[in-house]
């Protein structure tokens, strides 16, 4: 757990971080087959193994960052729908949130016992860059004074499994005269998660403190999380299939050092006409297949 007092400088840094580049989505890859040549005849006797090779183009994996904003559609209704979105705007639930209706004073910890989950509704999948820290801010607003603590936990789905990216707990002395008080937080995910394709993301926020009478999470772009990410998935592959365009039993190919070529040797198919199919995979994107027809002779 990390606890610190919010400073104005930190607020400025957090605010400027909003200008970080957002990662483009919808990247695609493509693949070609150069060997064997179209219509080539291959002797089974002379070539018990068949070399298959080609070119591939993957989307750039430039490191960047994706901003997710805490948003809420309503206030105190079944349509509140707290969520994360890569776009910011005016929120129907802005200024709505936590009402403690009590003050326990210094030394106590007024805990509503409730947390709010903000699952991402867009921006997925996201290739995580775990070489950098995740940061963000939860801005508090409303009638408030004294120390407030914000606990945040970021959870994701990776390969269909729940993975906790990390958590942080930060405190700040609230300013009752200000519009809102951003409380910055930082989460350093495990390096083992670097390059993971996040399928889903959730930010859980829990606010507590001894002197809060009522408090609200300020929305409308004021509360956010920046997730370091790659512009496209770093998980790249090429696979081939003989006479089966559905790739039911694919054979993985080896990518060369440049990442623009691939090759694989397979047992030469039986005598007759055959079609080899190849497709490239980058994260959850699969290219249109390339195909090459050739003939195996005695």
């Amino acid at each position, binding site marked *: 757990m990390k606890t610190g007092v919010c400073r104005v400088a930190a607020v400025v840094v957090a605010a400027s971080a909003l200008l970080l580049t957002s990662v483009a989505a919808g990247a695609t890859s493509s693949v070609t087959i150069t060997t064997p040549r179209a219509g080539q005849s291959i002797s089974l006797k002379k070539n018990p193994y068949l070399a298959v090779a080609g070119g591939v183009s993957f989307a750039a994996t430039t490191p960047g960052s994706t901003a997710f904003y805490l948003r809420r559609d309503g206030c105190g209704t079944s349509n509140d729908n707290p969520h994360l979105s890569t776009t910011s705007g005016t929120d129907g639930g802005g200024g709505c949130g936590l009402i403690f209706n009590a003050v326990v004073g210094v030394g106590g910890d007024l805990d509503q016992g409730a947390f709010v989950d903000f*699952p991402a509704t867009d921006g997925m*999948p996201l290739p995580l860059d775990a070489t950098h820290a995740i940061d963000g801010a939860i801005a508090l607003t409303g009638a408030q004074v004294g120390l407030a603590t914000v606990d945040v936990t970021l959870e*994701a*789905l990776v390969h269909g499994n*729940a993975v*906790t990216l990390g958590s942080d707990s930060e405190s700040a002395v609230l300013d009752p005269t200000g519009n809102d008080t951003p409380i910055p937080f930082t989460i350093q995910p495990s390096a083992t998660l670097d390059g993971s394709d996040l399928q889903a993301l959730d930010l859980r926020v829990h606010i507590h403190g001894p002197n809060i009478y009522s408090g609200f999470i300020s929305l409308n772009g004021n509360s956010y999380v920046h997730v370091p990410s790659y512009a496209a998935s770093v998980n790249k592959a090429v696979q081939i299939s003989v006479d089966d365009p559905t790739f039911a039993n694919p054979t993985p190919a080896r990518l060369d050092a440049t990442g623009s070529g691939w090759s694989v040797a397979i047992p030469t198919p039986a005598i007759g006409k055959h079609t080899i199919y190849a497709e490239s995979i980058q*994260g*959850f994107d699969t290219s249109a297949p390339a195909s090459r027809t050739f003939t195996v002779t005695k």
Partner: protein
Amino acid sequence: MKRLVLSAAAALAAFTFAASAAADPAHHPLYMPDARNMQNPALQPPPICCSPVGPPVAGEPAPVNMAYFGGHIQVVPKIYLVFWGWGQAGAFDHTTPGMPTYDPDGAAARMTDFVKAIGGTGWAGVQTQYYELDNGQEVHITNPANQFGGVWYDNTNPIHDNVTGLELAQEAQRAVAHFGVTDLHDSQFVIAQPQKFNEAGFNGGVGYCAWHDYTQPQYYPGVQPGISFTNMPYVLNLGSSCGQNSVNTAYFAGKLDGFTIVMGHEIEETITDPGAEDVINGQNLGGWYDYAAYENGDKCAWVGYTFGLSSPSTVPGGLNDITGNDGKKYAVQSLWSNDSAAGVGYCAGAGDDFPVTG
């Protein structure tokens, strides 16, 4: 010796209750009320005895041991999963990158993994104390490592929203044919429904998460008799009422808790009571349940559950994660064990047993 006494008592109970129940042919499936409807009178099992017993107190085990009512049990359980219409257009209103479109939340995968993983666990092992009488001999439930019968994604026979119990039974019959099952006694069929096409009572807010039943011509006309099946709706639709995040509180880690809790409840009830308390022409087809007709799952449903205020596993017999035979964790409820607490009986098997276990 204890077994002999219990067997005699059970036989007497079976005779008495069979006669009583024959006079009261009321029938409905055996519901698993959601966590907010545990005491809903409409969801209690049909009365079988002359001494009315109130419904279980929410969050607490229902006392009194179970008895054997004379019907068969599933000695070598085989569980068949049917994901009816999960690949049909409109079955889900969302997708998840990297997840199949027919299973965007991973619920089907989790349920399948769970059924494959329960064999040989201590949780499923609770069942081995229960038995049927074959020519006066006790034949006990076994706990083999593989209790998974098979899985069928049926996208051929169309499903629709608000399906009826009869339609579920008909799907179970199709599953019998699909899998080529000949041993109905040891087989059960879980008819799992996708997010947008569910059984009418579940959709209608009756207050249950699932139910199990046994096909008989009186109740499921035109359906092959003797099929034990479970109505397994998409319980995530009812959120925490059907167990979402009840054991694992993190958003994704606990999202599917309800699927294994609810399906596990129905599967294990079906193993000990595949005949679903049916009484046909005076013959009791029921297996094991208590005098108030609560089965081993009913008696331990939602124990310790406080909707997030405290961890249910801190309560003996409370909801908890078990470790499957694949080494993975699965959220379950405990099961009633007559042997626990020195024979007094208690909820057991979920890794948080009452200190005195049998």
